């Protein structure tokens, strides 16, 4: 049963309503192997080729915890300022679903790995909004279902489904936020900055399209100051945009219901990006009863202070600290430091360029400007960019030394992307290179002043604009390669002298 509703056109929540949003984020850890068995966690392999008797739930098989997964989960808990639980255990969450091989998911319940953390989210207007982190816990992923026989590939209308267990057993960390988020924009900022944080921690591919970062939201609306309204769980938002649009649509739906005197029913809500609509999926079955109990096949995990301290010490520099350092060390403005500090790969790239080119501000401008534009246009990852940090810094050196003008440098950069050749080779092959040779230019300037006595006289009479005429002539003769600053200087000296 589904009840479609129109997506809201306006993103903002009206003043006389308040939305209360909490997010549940699932992060696939990029360990080599699964949570409880030695199968690889690789993505995109042929179905049921990354499986063994343990992750297929064969009778008599027993799980053993992946040490690296615990370490990664601890990293996440610490980076979110959680308290790491000294004595933590796994529970079984019991339910039947064809992608769940054992009839239960090994997860955590009342003793999660981390509790009571927060993330300071920088909003669009620069304000800091603190979002509480209720818990960080470890669990295993389910397999994947492909719905067949229907028109849409969706579960509705399919007459059977195919199950692939490659993903089953992949280590997951679930991060649950407090209901501290008030708008879809805030939710998007939270998720973006959480993704950046996870990237810096190097624990996950954090790719929403591939499902290594997944986000569900608990949403309710109320009049400001009133008690919490009935919440719904919004699922299937596999991009930042869908998260925002899904929340907007669901908030709109709930406000609409309440304003017309109807109640919001507790339900799971699905966002369909193609129609921009949300539909409630009312289950025909009884409410879930997961019958949690401690997993008898696994033993408790006790993370002592020394372990936690060691993991804390191994944490890489995180976005907030990196931003501060970029401001202090390179003198970057807050905005630039924020952009470069939040993106791990881009920040690394910037540091290499700045170091080699010897001009941090110039490096920041180029990395955030032409280089980022190239990445966005092509979808190439920083690490795979056609122009590496050494190549870019070589180009910037030519620019700084005056061999190239800004305009020329941009052209050379485009050539470097296309051909993969170093800047110096492109400059030579194209006969580029700014003429900064004072003697050569001086000859030309003298000749032009003598050949144009009329305009020269006008300039001496105070008509500054005539200088532009002479600059144009010089550029024409040099095919635009003269150093403009130098040309200006020489022209003034010879016209007035």
């Amino acid at each position, binding site marked *: 049963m589904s009840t479609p509703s129109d997506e809201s056109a306006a993103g903002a929540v009206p003043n006389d309503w308040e939305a209360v949003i909490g997010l549940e984020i699932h992060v696939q850890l990029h*360990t080599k192997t699964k949570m409880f068995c*030695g199968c690889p966690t690789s993505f995109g392999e042929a179905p049921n080729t990354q*499986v063994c008797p343990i992750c297929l739930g064969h009778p008599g098989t027993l799980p053993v915890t992946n040490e690296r997964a615990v370490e990664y989960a601890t990293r996440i808990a610490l980076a979110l300022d959680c308290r790491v639980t000294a004595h933590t255990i796994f529970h079984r969450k019991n339910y039947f679903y064809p992608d769940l091989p054992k009839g239960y998911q090994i997860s955590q319940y009342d003793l999660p790995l981390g509790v009571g953390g927060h993330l300071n989210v920088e909003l669009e207007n620069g304000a800091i909004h603190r979002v509480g982190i209720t818990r960080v816990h470890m669990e295993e992923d389910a397999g994947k279902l492909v719905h067949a026989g229907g028109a849409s590939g969706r579960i*509705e209308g399919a007459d059977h489904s195919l199950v692939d267990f490659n993903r089953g057993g992949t280590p997951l960390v679930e991060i649950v936020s407090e209901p501290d988020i008030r708008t879809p924009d805030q939710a998007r900022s939270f998720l973006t900055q959480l993704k950046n944080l996870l990237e810096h921690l190097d624990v996950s591919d954090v790719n929403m399209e591939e499902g290594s970062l997944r986000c569900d939201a608990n949403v309710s609306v109320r009049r400001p100051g009133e008690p919490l309204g009935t919440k719904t769980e919004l699922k299937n938002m596999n991009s930042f945009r869908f998260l925002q649009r899904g929340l907007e649509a669901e908030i709109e739906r709930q406000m609409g219901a309440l304003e017309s005197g109807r109640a919001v029913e507790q339900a799971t809500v699905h966002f369909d990006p193609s129609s921009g609509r949300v539909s409630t999926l009312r289950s025909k079955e009884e409410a879930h009863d997961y019958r949690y109990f401690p997993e008898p096949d696994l*033993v408790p995990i006790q993370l002592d202070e020394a372990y936690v301290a060691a993991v804390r010490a191994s944490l890489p520099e995180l976005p907030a600290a990196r931003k501060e350092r970029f401001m202090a060390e390179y003198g970057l403005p807050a905005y630039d430091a924020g952009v470069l500090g939040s993106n791990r790969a881009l920040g690394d790239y910037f540091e290499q360029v700045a170091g080699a080119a010897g001009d941090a501000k110039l490096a920041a401008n180029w990395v955030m400007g032409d280089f980022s534009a190239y990445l966005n246009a092509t979808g190439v990852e920083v690490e795979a960019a056609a122009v590496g940090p050494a190549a870019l810094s070589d180009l910037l050196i030519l620019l700084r030394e005056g061999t190239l003008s800004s305009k020329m440098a941009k052209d050379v950069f485009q050539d470097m992307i296309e051909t993969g050749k170093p800047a110096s080779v492109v400059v030579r092959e194209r006969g580029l290179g700014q003429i900064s040779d004072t003697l050569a230019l001086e000859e030309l300037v003298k000749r032009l002043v003598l050949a144009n006595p009329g305009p020269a006289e006008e300039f001496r009479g105070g008509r500054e604009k005539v200088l532009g005429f002479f600059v144009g002539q010089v550029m024409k003769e040099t095919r635009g390669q003269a150093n403009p600053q130098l040309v200006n200087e020489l022209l003034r000296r010879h016209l007035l002298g």
Partner: protein
Amino acid sequence: MISREEVEHIARLARLRFEDGEYERLAQELSKILDYVQTLGELDLTGLEPTAHAVALKNVFRADEPRPCLPREQAVANGPAVERGQFVVPRIG
């Protein structure tokens, strides 16, 4: 005493179905067994921690090192219905 409705609810949770006449009998059997196990209430258990394992082990881990997977034909060999290397299940929605 457990009601027939409770038995039906539990059966559904466990994905079991019984013959119509069996529910009443099960309600009686389960009630008797549950009455018996509830005699634990006679013990003074205050201050005792629950025991999940007879021997108190902790921190048992494996290194993050890949091990061979099953060849696909073996992985799906026992599947009651298999199509293109995947397990087939009837309509879910």
